[in-house]
């Protein structure tokens, strides 16, 4: 991948929270790349730092949290040439979190939608008023023009009777409708990147399916990039081009969706894929489960954060040294000593550890 293909590049990001009980290393060395016009899914369990990563990108971390290291290179804002001087790569970490430049990026170049659509919309204002405010903040439009644009956006996301619904309050809308309004608002300024933090977790499956369809359609139409955060591997399979698997503040595996699902490398990814019930697999069978639980981020185990739960952990190695990030192909990495070419375990093949339950055939590193 050439440099300019990457819309967003996060390198070595560390976001720590300095609490009275000690430092919580919520995000501890995250590298990820969002290419242009692609969907990247971050998947992980609660406490793995996926939401903090996305909030760090928008510089929405409140004290006692702080980005202590790393860079977030943003190469958006070019095509539309929004403001003279924009378009060059900018390191978001270097910006003042309350400054002019980041405020021009938020909601304009990068938009975000959240898990609870009901809680994200103000009940005091109509959805129209909230959308018009966003639009006029970033675009020089009159109120009437902005209202027209907002109505068009509501129609675009499939809200019936947008001329009427624009004057509705959030509590008059169902969960699915509110999430559509959030998406319309996020897309009103044609962002280059949409960050969606578990946008369908609070919704029913039938509604979730339609929201996922909508995001996929809009992405194909507008060529924006999407950074989609979820814990649901079914949603990842449905939506992602690339997948980033996180565990306890670190990225454990990255790759294209086919690679990660059909040839998972990291023991955590493999165990996760085995432990989810899949429809059509039969009933009343014990699921293979991962032992133990995710430790609290303030009590990170030394060495590889996954080693206490890992069946393939190597005593004396995984519990002491930080695992290396091994490149397995273009855009394909695993952070595990099993793949470390410089010595270590005999043979990098996960099958030799006897734990792989997935087909190894096909699915090489082609995107």
């Amino acid at each position, binding site marked *: 991948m050439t440099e300019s293909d990457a819309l967003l590049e996060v390198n070595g990001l560390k976001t720590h929270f300095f609490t009275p009980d000690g430092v919580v290393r919520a995000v501890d060395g995250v590298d990820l790349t969002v290419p242009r016009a692609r969907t990247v899914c971050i998947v992980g*369990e*609660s406490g793995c730092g996926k939401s903090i990563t996305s909030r760090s990108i928008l510089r929405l971390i409140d004290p006692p949290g702080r980005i202590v290291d790393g860079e977030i290179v943003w190469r958006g804002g070019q095509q539309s040439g929004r403001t003279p001087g924009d378009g060059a790569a900018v390191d978001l970490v270097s910006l003042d979190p309350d400054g002019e430049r980041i405020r021009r990026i938020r909601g304009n170049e990068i938009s975000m939608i959240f898990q609870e659509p009901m809680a994200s919309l103000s009940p005091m204002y109509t959805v129209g008023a909230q959308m018009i405010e966003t639009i006029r903040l970033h675009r020089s439009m009159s109120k009437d023009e902005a209202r027209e644009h907002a109505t068009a956006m509501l129609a675009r996301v499939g809200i019936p009777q947008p001329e009427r619904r624009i004057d509705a309050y959030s509590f008059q809308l*169902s969960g*699915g*409708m509110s999430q559509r309004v959030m998406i319309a608002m996020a897309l009103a300024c044609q962002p280059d990147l949409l960050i969606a933090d578990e946008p369908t977790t609070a919704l*029913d*499956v*039938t*509604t*979730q*399916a*339609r929201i*996922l*369809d909508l995001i996929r359609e809009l992405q194909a139409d507008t060529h924006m990039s999407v950074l989609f955060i979820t*814990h*649901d*591997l*079914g*949603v*990842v*399979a*449905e939506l*992602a081009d690339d997948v980033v698997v996180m565990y306890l503040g670190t990225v454990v595996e990255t790759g294209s*969706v*086919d690679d990660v*699902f*059909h040839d998972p490398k990291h023991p955590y990814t493999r*165990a*996760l*894929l085995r*432990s*989810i*019930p*899949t*429809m*059509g*697999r*039969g*009933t*009343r*069978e*014990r*699921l*293979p*489960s*991962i*032992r133990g*639980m*995710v430790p*609290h981020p303030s009590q990170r185990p030394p060495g590889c954060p996954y080693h206490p*739960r890992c069946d393939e952990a190597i005593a004396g190695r995984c519990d002491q040294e930080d695992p290396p990030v091994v490149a397995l192909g273009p855009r394909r990495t695993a952070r595990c000593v099993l793949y470390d070419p410089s010595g270590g375990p005999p043979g990098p093949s996960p099958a030799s550890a006897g734990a792989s339950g997935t087909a190894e055939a096909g699915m090489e590193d082609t995107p």
Partner: protein
Amino acid sequence: MNDDVPLLDIRGLTMRFPVKKNMFGRVTRYARAVENVDLAIARGETLGLVGESGCGKTTLGRCIVRTHRPVGGSIFYRNDDGSAADLAALTTKQLRPYQREVRLIFQDPFSSLNPRMTLLQIVGEPLHTQGIARGSELEDRVAEMLRRVGLRPEYMRRYPHAFSGGERQRVNIARALIPQPRLVVADEPVSALDVSVRAQILNLLLELQEELDLTYLFISHDLSVVESICHRVAVMYFGSIVETAATSDLYTQPQHPYTEALLSAVPQPDPRLRGSGRIRLPDDLPDPTDPPAGCSFHTRCPYARPDTCAVGDPPGLHAAAQDHEAACHFSSQLHLTGVASGPEGLAPQKDLAQQYE
């Protein structure tokens, strides 16, 4: 003992909530939550109850444990000696012995445990209030129960805040099972848990069922979880059961369009199955204070025929195949698609585009 008689036999159960009163304090408008539900649970069985939020599945569960008093219908519970009691008709006092036999596991492991009580107090409370055990005997039984659900008995003097979501759910299960119940209503017991912990808790529920001879009503909106744990499944829509069958029959050969749509909407953890031509339902559920005429699903159903489905009484549950009931006028004529059995997952879906709008 006659095994044909179900442990729990629900007949015509109806629950409505008042939403509007007139100036004399008389209720003039009701929201329907559960409407004329018939459902039987055999002893030792796990019955899954699935549906979207607001379909009444939690209310049905709460009627069974009688935290709600249903406005109509009966809930026949078969005692160990073979006699039956109608839980819906019992007074609070008469209900007491059944409160240890029919137990509820809550969804949210964070809000359902009192933060000011230790595990000993939380788990021991049912024994204490029922007067079953006291003092050191109570402690012994709590310790044994904690061990059984996979927690260390030494932790019994700690408070819930010291435990993770998965551990708290184990405490929840221990509290439900300590008075040795026969029927357990598990209301979304794994929805709030992380993926890697979910499998542990599901396995624990399976083990405990075998060890303790339990019968489960497993309420969930997650169809993959229900398939992995339930013998039989009932699908609920807008307060009524629309389909019930053995799990594999229901998943592979659904007989109600709503079941088909639900199955089709579940995202599959396999990128090869990425959805195209899947069935999509419009978002809007009917207003529970103003139910539609005819079949309650006709407002969203892709196969609805206005002349039949939108008029008259709602279709009742009838046999659509062997041991398979569905509440649809056309279940014998529609050829609905389910989940293909085996690891390949969903079969190709038919094109429904022309039937919308």
